[in-house]
């Protein structure tokens, strides 16, 4: 098995295994220092970000919304974790020179052309639908896919199968099964 990939990254088995160790260390550290076990996740932060943005125009509306009240709009552990992902990816990509400005990804360009506006609409629209789904399912590939599967949660196995199952079907329909 190769430890380096063709694009100069680390073997996904190695990087993934290290992420597993990070998940264990994180569960331990949050229990010890914060008094409650917290698991890696990302999608709840988008609710908090939406709440923080809405607070600037309508604080009363946010205070009266049941879901924002339930989620607690604040910059918490997970919010900083998500910001940290940005910083970690930036540091890593600058260090190994894989940082690359990209406006339209190749598979998208092959199917929909190189127009940035089309890609922007796809990314935005896909984002809206995906986040409604993630909040409904109460997790994304981090919270359900990684953390929930590690704990053998029943809901996470169902969510994991749905994420990939529907993703595979949708990708085939959208980008076609063409083998280049």
């Amino acid at each position, binding site marked *: 098995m190769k430890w380096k990939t063709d694009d100069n990254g*680390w073997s996904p*088995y190695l*990087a*993934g*295994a290290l*992420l*597993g*160790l990070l998940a264990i260390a994180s*569960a331990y550290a949050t229990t010890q220092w*914060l008094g409650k076990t917290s698991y890696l996740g990302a*999608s709840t932060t*988008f609710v908090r970000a939406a709440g923080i*943005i*809405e607070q600037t125009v309508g604080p009363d509306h946010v205070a009266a919304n049941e*879901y924002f009240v339930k989620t607690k709009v604040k910059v918490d*552990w997970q*919010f900083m*974790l*998500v*910001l*940290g*992902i940005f*910083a*970690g*990816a930036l540091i890593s990509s600058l260090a190994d020179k*894989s940082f690359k*400005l*990209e406006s*339209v*990804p190749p*598979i*998208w360009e092959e199917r929909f052309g190189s127009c940035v506006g089309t890609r922007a609409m796809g990314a935005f*629209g*896909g984002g*809206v*639908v995906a*986040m409604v*789904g*993630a909040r*409904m*399912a*109460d997790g994304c590939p*981090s919270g359900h*896919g990684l*953390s*929930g*599967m590690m*704990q053998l*949660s*029943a809901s996470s196995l*169902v969510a994991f199968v*749905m994420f990939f199952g*529907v*993703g595979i079907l*949708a*990708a*085939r329909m*959208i*980008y076609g099964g063409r*083998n280049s």
Partner: protein
Amino acid sequence: MSTDQLLGLVTGVLFGFLLQKGRVLRFEKQVGAMLFKDMTIVKFMLSAIFVGMVGILLLSDMGIITLSHKPMNVGAVVLGGALFGMGWAVMGFCPGTSIGALGEGRWHAAFAVVGMIAGAALYAELYPFFSETVLAWKDFGKIGLPEVLGISHWLIASLFVGGGVALFFWFEKKGI
């Protein structure tokens, strides 16, 4: 910065570093896996799950950490999971990787991030409606597979790891 924010930030930087090194942040990798052309993200996720699973179950058995299952609310998980899958295929990122992709220069991920914040705002507005419909169908509560199947968690973990390793060999044989 409070302790919880600082701990979150440090954990997140390491998380983002590993996601980037594993090359799983890219649109090509995420959609590539859905098209069975490049299984990098599946190898990465399953490796993380298997290693994490052993440690998490062990620490839980020792009473050091507590498990926190998300509710097995059937309608929500099935319908929500399906909506997520559809959106994911178009967007080509998931919530965590969109932020990381932005960090490695894939700036079109910004549209995905804005879309997801809009989606979260929309969900907050629709929450009363969902509470009475899809979220109210059938909730089995916060349950784990060991309770559902009535067998040891170590047996289930072994089956997952066994199946996963077989899958890894198949991927490598196929060169995907």
